[in-house]
């Protein structure tokens, strides 16, 4: 990956809360090239969605603030841009799909109008031309009878159709980067599979870079090229999907893979006890000096509680922030 399309470098986001300052993102670095899918995984509260919001320039300010770091789209710095410039980038260069298609669509406008809106705003198209493009977009997201559906209101569509409309809105101006924040969480398995197929197809046609935020390691395995695992606002492991999934180094990544009962074509007759990650994600206001995962980690050593481990490259070229992994590699 020589020229990342989008690069997030050492981004720090702080929130002022009544309980004190919370470091929501702690020196997060990510990059995605065009035509690639980057997966971000982690539990709720690990900073996945906040990473997306900081890329979109949508960190709620106040109480939040991008304290330091840089986010570059094709070399252009996004941090610190004024509202008007950011507004031109959002929807045009960077599109976003949210988790809940019902609450993200406006119930009082037809879906055609909602797709046409971004085309009119960003490309100065006439209302008529914008609506024609909207119908084309509905067709490209495989909605049957697009002319008729464009006149439908969100409540008249099923959950899967609404998510297709969200994708159509996000892709209407052919963005270079698409951020999909848990795009299928609210959908059934067979519909989820259709949406994933659609994302892959559109990506190979348009060369869009996709950032896929999910908690499903299966979706990462089948869709993403690269993966970043986040915990308590930090990236704790990242690399090629094949490497990270087949040889995870961080105990949190290992836990995320083994604590979920995966569907097996040949299930064992004797059931095993599932691996557990004990405890919960810590409150960001209560992080100590050590590794944030240490209180839940079965492998921790003394060092883990005294200093935060940095991301370090392993021989198979993926990065892990873990003292134990570092010690084992040094041996």
């Amino acid at each position, binding site marked *: 990956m020589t020229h990342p399309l989008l690069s997030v470098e050492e981004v720090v986001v702080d929130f002022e809360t009544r309980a004190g300052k919370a470091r929501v993102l702690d020196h997060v670095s990510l990059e995605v090239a065009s035509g690639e899918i980057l997966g971000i995984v982690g*539990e*709720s509260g690990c900073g996945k969605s906040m990473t997306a919001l900081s890329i979109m320039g949508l960190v709620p300010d106040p109480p939040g603030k991008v304290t330091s770091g840089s986010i570059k789209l094709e070399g252009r710095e996004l941090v610190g841009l004024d509202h008007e410039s950011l507004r031109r980038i959002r929807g045009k260069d960077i599109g976003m799909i949210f988790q809940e298609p019902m609450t993200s669509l406006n119930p009082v406008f037809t879906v055609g109008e909602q797709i046409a809106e971004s085309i009119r705003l960003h490309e100065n198209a006439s209302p008529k031309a914008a609506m024609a493009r909207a119908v084309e977009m509905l067709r490209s997201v495989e909605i*049957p009878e697009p002319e008729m559906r464009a006149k439908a209101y969100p409540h008249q569509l*099923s*959950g*899967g*159709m609404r998510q297709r409309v969200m994708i159509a809105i996000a892709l209407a101006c052919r963005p270079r980067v698409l951020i999909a924040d848990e795009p299928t969480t609210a959908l*059934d*398995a*067979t*519909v*989820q*599979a*259709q949406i*994933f*197929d659609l994302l*892959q197809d559109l990506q190979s046609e348009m060369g869009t870079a996709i950032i896929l935020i999910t*908690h*499903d*390691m*299966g*979706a990462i*395995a*089948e*869709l993403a*090229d690269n993966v970043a695992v986040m915990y308590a606002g930090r990236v704790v492991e990242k690399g090629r999907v*094949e490497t990270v*999934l087949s040889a995870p180094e961080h105990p949190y990544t290992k*836990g*995320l*893979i083994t*604590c*979920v*009962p*995966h*569907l*097996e*074509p*040949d*299930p064992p*007759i004797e*059931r095993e*006890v*599932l*691996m*557990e*990650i*004990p405890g*919960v*994600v810590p409150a960001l206001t209560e992080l100590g000096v050590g590794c944030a995962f240490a209180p839940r980690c079965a492998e921790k050593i003394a060092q883990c509680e005294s200093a935060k481990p940095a991301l370090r490259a392993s021989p198979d070229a993926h990065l892990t922030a873990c003292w134990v992994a570092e010690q084992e590699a040094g041996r």
Partner: protein
Amino acid sequence: MSAGSRNSALVVEDLKVHFGGGSSLFGPKPTVHAVDGVSFSVPAGKTFGIVGESGSGKTTTALAIMRLVHITAGRVALGDTPIGELEGEDLRAARRQFQIVFQDPYSSLDPRKRAGEIVREPLDLMQIGTRAEREAKVAELFEQVGLRPEQRVLFPHQFSGGQRQRLGLARALSTEPDLIVCDEPVSALDVAIQAQILNLMARLQRELGLTYLFISHDLGVVQHICDEIAVMYLGQIVEQADRVTLFNNPQHPYTKALLAAVPTVHGNKRDRRNRTRLKGDPPSPVNLPTGCRFASRCPIAEVRCSKVAPPLEDRGDGHKVSCLLV
């Protein structure tokens, strides 16, 4: 008492739950066939899973067994208790034997009550034991589900999602039921927390001999926790088998498509393109097709499929399939 009910904790026969119907000012109201002729039995101490997509009727089946929706037709019995026929005070008293754990631990606990009171409430309502005995029972339940007894004085918002689901389990266990209906008990929880609750449920079953009816859309979870699994589509069971057979030898085209739709950590980008995909959404449960309900989305459907409704037949060893073509 028939021979079947002695070793079956739960027996459901030809259960139907229809909503709507009748007429209103604006003409006849449509009937929604939410559950349409479902039969199964669950041996005591076992876990029976129902999987299916939204609108398949799995939750309505669970609610009908809990007597939380009106049963249109059919029989539901728990051991010797004809749950489906009880009314009024008899039904209320019988509720000791069957309890439910809901999907969303955030909305199913009263935010104004302390945790201890929430867990004690069923004991109060059923007037079990003295006040001191109830308090002791609550403390014991807290330990049983992995909470500290001193946490009884906290309010629900002071617990994490996983802990709240532990409270939901403690509340369900308080009346020492035989059957616990679990409606998507881990779907609202973070992935790392799901394992904690699933392991807890398995341990409680071993220790207390509980029977579970487990409703979920997550096939991985169902495969892990259930002994026998039924796949529902549009109000009917289309396939039913034990957990090993269903996953290594699925017969119904819908089951196959459902299994193929789930991404797994063993998969990769290349294989996912070579799988069969279902098109579209399920038809509406209001205007049901005459033949097989899956025919409109089925990749192998023939003309006769849309004319004749296939019966759910035993294909050997209790593996039941409703399909004309397999």
